[in-house]
């Protein structure tokens, strides 16, 4: 049960790698495989919510010796969201016409890496899956193979390789300090360590995931990459791959190194606030839609960091909820910028409302959770910051809307009906989840309880 999504994704990725992904039927096969992976993840989520976390030790070793695969509430919701984003982006690209033979296989490999990363209980195994996902996304970034995509891929690869190096050093020093790599044992051991020894390790982890998520001081690679990659790839990078950053911060920050997280609360809140303002202001000032969305991604990452910095059950709950909602918004917006014609404008507007946090879209609940954090923390400054951030996001979103969808250029061919319907479907999903948010709220509440209870 636990291994099912991983095994299906990996097997199908290997099979698809041998086939020519440009053919329609191969694309259909890939969509079928991705759907099965998504359903398997969903069933695992239901299982975990009903019966608590699942655990397998690979190779039949006794626990503590072998590599543990563990599906708990936090990991599985992230796996579900990421696989959902991958599924949507894959359908979109198959409808639009795949250009390269490896593309569907790469999406499945990425699904393997991400699912494994979210479902592992071992820090080094986390790194291995992390590298599988990163390597796949480096290749995906080249998708299109023109000058701009290759340039984006080069920037993306070099910067993220450095991020991985930091993460690997952090894992090595965690092993040195605690003598274990199992996450649960690490959580237990990290609390008892002497403060000085582990602070630098915590910094390394923060830098590694900050690079991945595109937080303020580590954001410089993100705008050119999101701007220049193909729309479906940009959606995958911002909706699925960036989840590694938020999940990593939650897993390593809020669970394993919770004491260090509390110590650095001030820094996190300040960096998050800068990210929010910087991202929003830059998004207003740039001209192209993709670049504005890229800066918007930096701003959205800031909200997660602020909530995480304030911490406590309310803060961590808001961080998880926001980290789950944000990928859906980003996927919808990046996919919508690649299309033309009616329905697309409406879908984009729904995504824009969701980013700004206007009901009945899903983003409203993310914003409500963040405002609750501000009120729980008795912080007027934070509430004002959230309000300004929301207002600015409304401005830049409708600037894009005005430039892209209010121009009536006769030269533009409307995109194919199916992909427009798909994008509208994602928009309807966001509205539907906004009208009936209980499942998502419940899942993120359970994940929060698990994280807080794990201390």
């Amino acid at each position, binding site marked *: 049960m636990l291994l099912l999504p991983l095994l299906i994704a990996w097997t199908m990725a290997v099979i698809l790698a041998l086939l020519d992904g440009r053919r329609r039927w191969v694309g259909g096969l890939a969509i079928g495989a991705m759907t099965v992976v998504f359903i398997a993840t969903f069933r695992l989520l239901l299982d975990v919510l009903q019966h608590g976390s699942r655990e397998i030790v690979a190779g039949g070793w006794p626990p503590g010796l072998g590599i543990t695969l563990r599906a708990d509430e936090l990991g599985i919701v992230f796996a579900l969201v990421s696989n959902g984003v991958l599924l949507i982006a894959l359908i979109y690209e198959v409808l639009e016409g795949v250009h390269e033979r490896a593309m569907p296989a790469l999406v499945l490999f990425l699904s393997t890496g991400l699912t494994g990363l979210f479902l592992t209980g071992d820090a080094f195994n986390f790194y291995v899956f992390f590298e599988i996902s990163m390597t796949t996304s480096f290749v995906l970034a080249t998708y299109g193979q023109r000058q701009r995509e*290759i340039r984006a891929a080069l920037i993306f690869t070099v910067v993220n390789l450095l991020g991985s190096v930091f993460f690997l050093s952090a894992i090595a020093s965690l092993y040195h300090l605690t003598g274990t790599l199992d996450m649960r044992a690490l959580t237990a051991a990290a609390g008892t360590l002497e403060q000085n020894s582990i602070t630098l390790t915590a910094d390394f982890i923060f830098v590694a995931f900050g690079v991945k998520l595109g937080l303020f001081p580590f954001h410089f690679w993100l705008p050119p990459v999101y701007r220049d990659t193909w729309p479906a790839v940009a959606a995958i990078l911002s909706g699925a791959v960036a989840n590694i950053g938020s999940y990593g911060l939650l897993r390593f920050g809020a669970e394993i190194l919770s004491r260090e997280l509390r110590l650095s609360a001030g820094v996190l809140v300040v960096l998050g606030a800068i990210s929010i303002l910087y991202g929003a202001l830059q998004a207003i000032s740039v001209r192209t839609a993709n670049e504005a969305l890229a800066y918007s991604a930096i701003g959205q990452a800031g909200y997660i960091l602020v909530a995480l910095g304030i911490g406590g059950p309310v803060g961590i709950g808001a961080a998880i909820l926001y980290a789950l909602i944000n990928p859906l918004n980003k996927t919808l917006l990046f996919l919508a910028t690649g299309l033309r014609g009616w329905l697309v404008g409406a879908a984009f507007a729904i995504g824009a409302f969701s980013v700004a946090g206007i009901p009945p879209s899903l983003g409203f609940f993310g914003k409500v959770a963040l405002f609750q954090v501000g009120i729980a923390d008795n912080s007027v400054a934070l509430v004002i910051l959230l309000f300004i951030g929301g207002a600015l996001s409304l401005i830049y979103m409708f600037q894009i809307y005005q430039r892209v969808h209010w121009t009536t250029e006769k030269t533009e061919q409307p995109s194919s009906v199916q992909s427009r319907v798909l994008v509208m479907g994602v928009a309807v999903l966001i509205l539907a989840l906004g009208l009936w948010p209980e499942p998502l709220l419940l899942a993120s509440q359970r994940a929060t309880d698990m994280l807080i209870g794990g201390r």
Partner: protein
Amino acid sequence: MNLLLALSVAVLFGAGTFLMLKHDLIRMAVGVLMISNAVTLFIMSVGLSRGQAPIYPLAEGRPISDPVVQSLTLTAIVISFGLTALLLTIIYRVYTLYGTLRGPDDATQDDHAETAGELLAQRPRNEPPRERSRA
């Protein structure tokens, strides 16, 4: 021994960082490789312990050197090998597309597109992209 390893890691990391900041892409790739080798060495050094090789049968009463670190190092070496190959491939693509290894210049191309519409107009979706780039 610890000091020697720490120095080697520092020198490798420093030299790698220096090379990474060069404009020449091959030097940059070498820099990335040196940094990842520095980390490999770092992993080795975190579990440095004297003892017999961790292979059965073990002699009684003598300390055993830590096998986990060695397996981690092996994995890290394999991963960095794969990533270096990928990085070199991307650099080769840059070379074939831009005709230079000085690093892609940020202002050469479509940064000047005014609106998203113009940007999109430059990338028609149904054309095979490879021909376009060579045109």
